[in-house]
Each structure stands twice: as structure tokens, then as C-alpha cells.
């Protein structure tokens, strides 16, 4: 089944407000693809364009090489799982799942077979007769998945479907969603502002901000090689050391951070000598300095948070404007650091990314 999704020059304007700036995107057949970004970044708008609920201002959507421009929302090979699930409260579980088939004129016996099979798939066997209100949050979630799968969509669209669940269930459902995706081989397009969800489940993630694609990459590439300051700051925790490019040496950049010293890092995107930039280093990349370290930073500890496997240290360097967060193995530091201790930290140039100054991070309001 070809369930490739191709967005060609898609953009969306609401009056004077541009929700999505023109973008192109190819989502592979059977891929678990996520749109990650703060609320208001345009990700839900994109989902509504793919599902046909919104007509894009420019551009076209192709699913499985077929143009969708003339196909109304109720005829598209997509199926959506809504943020609030939008199950039909006046119908039973089975009727909910069978609704899409009822629309297509499938016989009652045939429909029952499908709903039984799907209830099996989502681990809710023999619960077709229940009322929606009798189900727990996690069970409703599964019914919503089964209902969306019943119509055998090429593409499943998921609009923050886990946001209503409690933490434990959310983590469990992540594994489950991934497993269902693997078994059904349907293309999943997942919308979330929760990076944990995007990183754990997705094959690729598109990070969005203010209606623009920031970076489209695998989760590990996003984490290790962010291409914009927004991605570096939005995905995972990062320490940002502001500075200026001194020189460029192949893929490596030497950055001058004023009184804090000079550091070497990987070039994230094109940079010019003299350009203001940010040097990004992850909390777990900061280790006790050794003789070989090119990058060294002496800090004093302000707070120690013991979190079991590791410690989170909030430290400060006298010449830097923000705190430096360090995530350390409890075996390395356990019981040895306290408020006021001084630490000599070292970090690898290839675990450090240098990126040009960006507009300040748009704050998410949820």
C-alpha cells in the first residue's frame, strides 16, 4: 500500500495571520512522523489540511501519489484521533468502532467481525457492548484508536491524543501506539508539544516554530545535531553559552565567550567569523575535566538535586549570564558535591554545537 504523504508548497493564512509559511514535506509510507512544537506553531493547522478540514491557502496535499485537492474530508483515506478523542457518547463501544463501516454500507455481521478483531488488537476484547461513559481514560483511548483503524486508512492522524491521560498511562500508550503502528504498517502523523512523545515514538520528527519547519530529522539527529537555536533549546535540555565566532576549522568552530574563555564546537549551520552565536552543550556532556579536554569550564555548585540514577547540578560560572546545568552519574559525584563546591568541567568538541543567534524562543502557553 502506497501511503506516502507529500506536501507541496503548503501554506495557510487566516486573514492577516500566517499560521503556516510555505513548506514542502515528504512523509514515507509506513513512517511514524511527528510534528513537534509549542502550541500555536501551526502543527494542528497542518494536520487539518492533511485531513481536509482546512483548505490550504497555497499548495497541495498528495496521499499515495493521489492529489487530494478535490477530495472532501469525508472521502480522504485519512483517519483522525482527536485530542479529546471525540467518541460518540450515545453509541456503544462497538457502534463507535463500526461507525465508519456503517457509513460505507458494510453489513452488520461483517462490521461486528471487524470491531471484534480491532478490540482484540487494542487489548479490549469482548467490550463492544459497553457504553463510552463506562470506560476509563486509557480504555477510551484504545477505542478511539480502534475506531480510527476500522476504516483502514492509509494515514492515521493523531492530534495530541495522549495529552488527557495521566503520566503513567501516557508512557504505556506510547509503547502501545508504536507497537500498533508496527503491526498495521499505516503511516502515522503525530502532533504533539511533548518532546518525550515525539522522540520515543517517531521515525522522524519535524520541529515547528511560528509556522515554519525548523528541522526535519530522526530523533537522535535532532538531539545531537540541532540545526537552529530553536531546536537546540526546545528539544531536550541544553546549556547555551553566548559568544562570537573566532575562526572556522573544517567542521569545527572556535567560539570566544568573553571572560569565560574560548571553546571548540561542531558547526551546526553555516557561520562566518565574527558572527554572534550560541555554543550549546548538553548537561550530560559536561564531565569532570581531564587533561585531554579542549573545552574546560570552572563552576561553583549552587544547587544539588539528587534524582536516583543521576544528579542534576545547577552551577554558575562567574562570567556567564545563566546557570550551567550538569547531569552527572550518581556514582561519579554522589555525596561528594554540595552547595558551594567548585568543579572543573570538561566537554568534547563533537558533543557541542555552535549555532547562529536566533530570534528568542517563542514561549509555549501550555
Amino acid at each position, binding site marked *: 500500500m502506497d501511503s506516502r504523504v507529500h506536501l507541496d508548497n503548503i501554506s495557510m493564512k487566516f486573514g492577516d495571520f500566517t499560521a503556516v509559511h510555505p513548506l514542502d514535506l515528504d512523509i514515507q509510507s509506513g513512517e511514524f512522523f511527528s510534528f513537534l512544537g509549542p502550541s500555536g506553531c501551526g502543527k494542528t493547522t497542518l494536520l487539518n489540511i492533511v*485531513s481536509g*478540514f482546512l483548505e490550504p491557502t497555497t499548495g497541495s496535499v498528495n496521499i499515495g501519489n493521489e492529489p487530494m485537492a478535490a477530495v472532501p*474530508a*469525508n*472521502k480522504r483515506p*485519512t*483517519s*483522525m484521533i*482527536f*485530542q*479529546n478523542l*471525540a*467518541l*460518540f457518547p*450515545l*453509541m456503544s463501544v462497538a457502534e463507535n468502532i463500526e*461507525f*465508519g463501516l456503517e*457509513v*460505507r454500507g458494510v453489513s452488520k455481521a461483517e462490521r461486528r467481525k471487524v470491531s471484534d478483531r480491532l478490540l482484540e488488537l487494542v487489548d479490549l476484547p469482548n467490550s463492544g457492548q459497553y457504553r463510552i461513559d463506562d470506560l476509563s481514560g486509557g480504555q477510551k483511548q484504545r477505542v478511539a484508536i480502534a*475506531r*480510527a483503524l476500522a*476504516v483502514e486508512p492509509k494515514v492515521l492522524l493523531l492530534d495530541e491524543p495522549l495529552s488527557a491521560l495521566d503520566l503513567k498511562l501516557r508512557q504505556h500508550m506510547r509503547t502501545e501506539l508504536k507497537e500498533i503502528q508496527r503491526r498495521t504498517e499505516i503511516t502515522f502523523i503525530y502532533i504533539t508539544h511533548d518532546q518525550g512523545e515525539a522522540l520515543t515514538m517517531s521515525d522522524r520528527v519535524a520541529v515547528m516554530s511560528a509556522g515554519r519547519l525548523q528541522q526535519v530529522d530522526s530523533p537522535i539527529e535532532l538531539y545531537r545535531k540541532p540545526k537552529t537555536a530553536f531546536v537546540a533549546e526546545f528539544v531536550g535540555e541544553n546549556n547555551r553559552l553566548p559568544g562570537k565566532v573566532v575562526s572556522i576549522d573544517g567542521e569545527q568552530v572556535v567560539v570566544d565567550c568573553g571572560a569565560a574563555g574560548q571553546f571548540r564546537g561542531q558547526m551546526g549551520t553555516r557561520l562566518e567569523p565574527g558572527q554572534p552565536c550560541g555554543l550549546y552543550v548538553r548537561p550530560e556532556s559536561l564531565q569532570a575535566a581531564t587533561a585531554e579536554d579542549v573545552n574546560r569550564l570552572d563552576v561553583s555548585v549552587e544547587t544539588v538535586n539528587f534524582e536516583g540514577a543521576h544528579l542534576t547540578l545547577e552551577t554558575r560560572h562567574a562570567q556567564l549570564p545563566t546557570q550551567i546545568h550538569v547531569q552527572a552519574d550518581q556514582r561519579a559525584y554522589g555525596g561528594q558535591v554540595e552547595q558551594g563546591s567548585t568543579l572543573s568541567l570538561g566537554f568534547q568538541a563533537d558533543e557541542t554545537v555552535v549555532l547562529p543567534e536566533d530570534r528568542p524562543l517563542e514561549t509555549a502557553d501550555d
Partner: protein
Amino acid sequence: MIKQLTARFGRPMTLVVLLLLWFWLIVLVLLPQLIMIDYSFKPNLIPSQLGGPEDVYTLGNYQTLIGNDIHRTIFFKTIWSSILVTVLTLLVSYPVAYFLAQLATAKQVMLIALLLVIPYWINEILRTFSWYLILSFQGPLNALLLGLGFIDRPVRFLTGDGGVLIGMVYAYILFMVFPLYNAIESLDNNQVRAARNLGAGLIRIHWRIVIPHAKPGIATGCIMVFMLAAGSYAVPALLGSPGSRWFTQIIYNWFFEGGDWNMGAAYAFVLLILCIGFIAAVMKVFRIGLGDIGK
């Protein structure tokens, strides 16, 4: 409840409120009805015969209704026409209510609600009279239809039931639109989108999602419109023809033309029973309780 009231308003004020409530319920609601029922089982006597040997309880008044072919026919015709008015009002109001509740912007809701309410600032008789003018043989509606070429000679709208039906649908549309609006407004728009996403077309979305959700509102609207229609006097009196008399007109005639209050009371009581029966039937058909209607 009395404890809460006492705590909030003090004992004397609570007493006043409760007394007023009971006065309203007993003297203004229950007692008149009971007197009417009492009247309906007594013959119409001149004052000197009151308390005499003929002043006994009898079913005579009701037997008159059952025995009178014309009155009986008008009674059933009133029921049937009121049902027709109810169904027509529902058909006209549903799209308006759905638009207001799910599609319209806040500004549009304000504007349309205002347009719907403005006619009600005018007395019902005057509103009905304006329809009398619009529908009359040489009135503006006929002129318009003739001008547009839809008809080649004027239509007698006011002969038969047509005028009465139009007038009533117009008069009671608000009593249907607002309960429907309330019910449909509480429907999560994602339900509609989900149904559409699963492939449902317009009709199925309404039949399977919106209408089941709006059921209590539909029942409330239908009950209100039916009762208003069955009990209406002004509209059939003004827009009706001799062939489309309403049962209320006969009741009126017994009271004010015939001077027979006892007969009128019996006829009115039968109409009351009919309306209660209709409410019970609608509640049964829609499988809803009294609590749902109150919402």
C-alpha cells in the same frame, strides 16, 4: 431548602416568600383548574336553579362533545393540525438552530437572535394581522409571486388551513429555535468532525450524531409548540376560514357567545387532558424524563 432560605434571608422574609409561593400555586394555579373541573361536571343553570334539584354532577357536557359530529371533527382536526404545525416548525427551526449553535460567529448569533426576537416586541394580534395582509388575495405575497411569474392567478392562501399553519409556524418559531439551539450548542464540534472524518455525509452526521444529542431540546420545543398551537386562539380566529376552525374557538364560543361556562369548561378540560397526553407520549417516544426537559 427552608433551612437555607432562613439562613440567608431570616425567618420573617422566608415566611413571606413561602406564603407568596403557596398563594401563587394554590390560589392562582390549582384552584382555578379545580373550579373549572367542578363546573364542567355541572349543567348550565340560571341563578335561581342553583342549589336546586337539577344542580347535580353529570357527564352531560362531555356527552355533548362526544355526540356532536362537528365539534368532534374539529377536536381531532385541531390535534392533527397542531402536530403538523409542530413538525413544520421543527423542520424550519432545525437548520436555523444548527447554524446558530455550530457554525455562526458570535456576531452572527447576536444579529440573528435579535432578528428572531424583534417581531415578539409586537403584540401577537398585530403580528397575525400583518400575515393576514401579506397572505390576502390581493396582498403583497400574491403580487410578488405573480410578478416573478411563479403563478398566473392569485392564490387564496386564507382559505383552508394554509394561512393558519403559516401563521402558527411563524408565531411559535422562537419556542422551537431556542431549546434546539441550547441542545445543539452543547455538542462538541469534534464529534461532527470525527463523524465526517470517518466518512459520514451531511445527512448521516445529523441523523446519527446531532439529532440524538439534541433530543431533549427537540422534545422540549415540540411540546411547547404543540401546546401553544393547540391552545392558540388569535391565529385561527384571524387567519382561519370557516372551514378551518380551531377547537379553542368552540371553547370561546361556549363561554362568550353561548354563555354556557359549564360546557366551555368541559371542552377546555378535554383539551387540557389532550395536551398532558401529548407531553407524556412525546416523552415516551424520545425516551426522556421531566428533568431533561427542564434543562
